[in-house]
């Protein structure tokens, strides 16, 4: 990584090759011709920091972006909810890792103290006394306000923060200004801290460019997950729940511009949980066919609504909540398609194949009332099967014997599907029952044709 043509960061392999910090571009290329050189992009860095801050909103609404690529989170009010300092640390680390970012994390009773400790690696100080001990050991250059006077303090024989604290305050204030003492007082908890907490935009929209052109929809999941983590942070900070989101996959421009693929994610049960959204998206992405390679992914929360607090009923229902069931339906719909997850919607019609209608679970279609005491077979064949006639009797595996009187269904003259049928229950030799019908002889044909239409399950 270069900044102003000088090496800023070099990875382990580059260092093995002899690359040192501050080297020029030409020097690096001489030492390691195959090295990949990137220019530092401060805008992208700021975006990434912003993304981390958004994701951390899950843990506390008080998140601030601080100097030198640090995000400060006030978790003092969230400790009980997440189950203690250790647990919340693990969860924050997992969240940050989901975003593909590495970093140091440290916990301290004061924000400025935590900031200082984080500059020097990972540490946890829970008591004021231990924080003071840790801070005293830090080199004074950790505090940005001291750095301009570094030479002077070195001349005085100071190396750690404790050395500077031993100097007379009045003299320090006169020579170095009040800012330096204030900063140190904040770190040691002697004066109150003020932060500009992150302000939340009213709408959520995030975009991420993929590191490479991607041709498999599943491979997008990792990047999409980064967006979902950010959105979950945004949702939980505002106590909103998502009902509708749009994922847009921007394609590579070939000779012709390719329309971006849009995935609509509609939720019957509003959620703000990352796990469910990721599972849902995984199933959706598994079914998508990409028109061209994907370069960038963006996610927009289209519809949100206030989140409902979880109910604290003493004895939970064995089958889980209705929300769980709705989530199950969403998951099934995402993988199998809406046309395969059905619920019955009866219509008031005499013809059994019209009366028995199945619609997608989330369709708005109303169901007509159920006719009382109408015996019908459980299974209806999609297409009635024409039966053979043997010795003037319908034949299906064995000769069928009619065991009921007929039920005449004559309807459908109004919509073109005119039917005139006599339905009978027939019994085969093995005593199984079938629902068969006879097309009523019409003017055109005198032939009697039998069909099998239903099975008594």
């Amino acid at each position, binding site marked *: 990584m270069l900044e102003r043509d000088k090496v800023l960061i070099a990875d382990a392999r580059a260092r093995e090759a002899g690359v040192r910090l501050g080297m020029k571009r030409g020097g690096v290329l001489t030492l390691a011709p195959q090295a990949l050189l990137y220019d530092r992009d401060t805008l992208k860095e700021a975006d990434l920091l912003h993304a981390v801050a958004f994701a951390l909103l899950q843990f506390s609404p008080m998140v601030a972006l601080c100097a030198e690529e640090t995000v400060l989170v006030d978790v003092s009010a969230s400790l009980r909810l997440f189950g203690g300092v250790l647990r919340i640390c693990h969860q924050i680390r997992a969240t940050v890792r989901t975003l593909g970012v590495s970093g140091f994390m440290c916990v301290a009773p004061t924000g400025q103290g935590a900031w200082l400790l984080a500059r020097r690696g990972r540490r946890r100080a829970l008591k004021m006394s231990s924080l003071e001990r840790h801070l005293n050991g830090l080199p004074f250059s950790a505090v940005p306000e001291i750095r301009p006077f570094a030479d002077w303090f070195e001349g005085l024989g100071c190396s750690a923060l404790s050395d500077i604290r031993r100097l007379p305050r009045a003299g320090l204030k006169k020579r170095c200004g009040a800012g330096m003492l204030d900063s140190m007082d904040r770190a040691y908890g002697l004066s109150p801290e003020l932060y500009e907490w992150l302000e939340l935009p009213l709408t959520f929209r995030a975009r991420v460019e993929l590191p490479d052109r991607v041709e498999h929809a599943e491979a997008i999941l990792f990047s999409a997950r980064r967006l979902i983590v950010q959105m979950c942070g945004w949702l939980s900070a505002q106590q909103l729940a998502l009902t509708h989101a749009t994922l847009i996959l921007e394609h590579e421009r070939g000779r012709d511009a390719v329309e971006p693929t849009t995935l609509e994610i509609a939720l019957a049960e509003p959620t703000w949980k990352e796990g469910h959204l990721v599972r849902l998206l995984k199933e959706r992405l598994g079914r998508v066919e990409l028109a061209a390679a994907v370069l960038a992914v963006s996610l927009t929360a289209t519809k949100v609504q206030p989140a409902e607090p979880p109910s604290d009923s003493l004895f939970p229902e064995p089958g889980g909540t209705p929300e769980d069931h709705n989530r199950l339906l969403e998951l099934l719909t995402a993988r199998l398609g809406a046309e395969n997850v059905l619920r019955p919607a*009866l219509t008031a019609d005499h013809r059994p194949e019209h009366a028995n209608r199945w619609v997608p679970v989330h369709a708005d279609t109303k169901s007509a009332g159920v006719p009382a005491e109408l015996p019908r077979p459980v299974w209806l064949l999609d297409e009635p099967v024409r039966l053979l006639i043997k010795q003037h009797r319908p034949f299906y595996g064995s000769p069928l014997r009619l065991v009921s009187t007929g039920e005449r269904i004559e309807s459908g003259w109004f919509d073109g599907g005119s039917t005139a049928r006599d339905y009978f229950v027939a019994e085969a030799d093995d005593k199984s029952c079938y629902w068969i019908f006879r097309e009523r002889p019409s003017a055109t044909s005198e032939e009697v044709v039998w069909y099998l239409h239903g099975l008594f399950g």
Partner: protein
Amino acid sequence: MSALPKHVESIHPALWLGAQLARGTGRTVDTGYAALSAELPGGGWPLSALVELLVQQPGVGEFRLLQPALQQVCKRPVALLQAPHTPNAQALAYLGLPVDKVLRVRAPKTADALWSAEQILRTGSCGALLFWQQHIRSDALRRLHLAAQSSETLFVLVRPLACAPDASPAALRLGLRPAAGGLVVDVIKRRGPTRDESIAVTLQPSPILLSPYGRIRRHSPAPTVARGIPSAVVA
């Protein structure tokens, strides 16, 4: 011998005889057919376990066999997965199942069907899951059985009768054959002693007699008053 087993049982719940049915540890749902319930461990269909019904062909009466049990669990939704034909919602309503609780899931591929079954079982929000599948591998069966144990769902897998000789992890396997007025049930596997004789179950409602236009079959030993068209219809 006659009074002894009961007596032994009453001493302590942990005491049992080798000839007795296994004492069910989990919950069961009454089958609604006394002859069948008496032969099942725990006196009914086991919940949280794989139950296999082996049928010659769909439509022999498997739905009416399960109907009393489904009525008990239908406070929660009832899922029909990979039904062999279109389920008739009118008939389900006639059998006493609330129509708005029925969920029908179709899966284009076997892998999708197995995945759906597992998801439904793991969520546990459905009161019953009926799953029709022709071919199913034994490792998939074990997986489903495991998933069923984590929920309080009545899980019935309907398979062809030809699968009866195959090994299966199911807690209960019944073979169903049509018979006059109902079904003949063969107990292929249950927790407890084997049973070689089959059980005759008269299914309710019969498809023939409950038709308002139905007439008694000529050779049935039914009272003669029921012959012909009911007087209510004539009037």
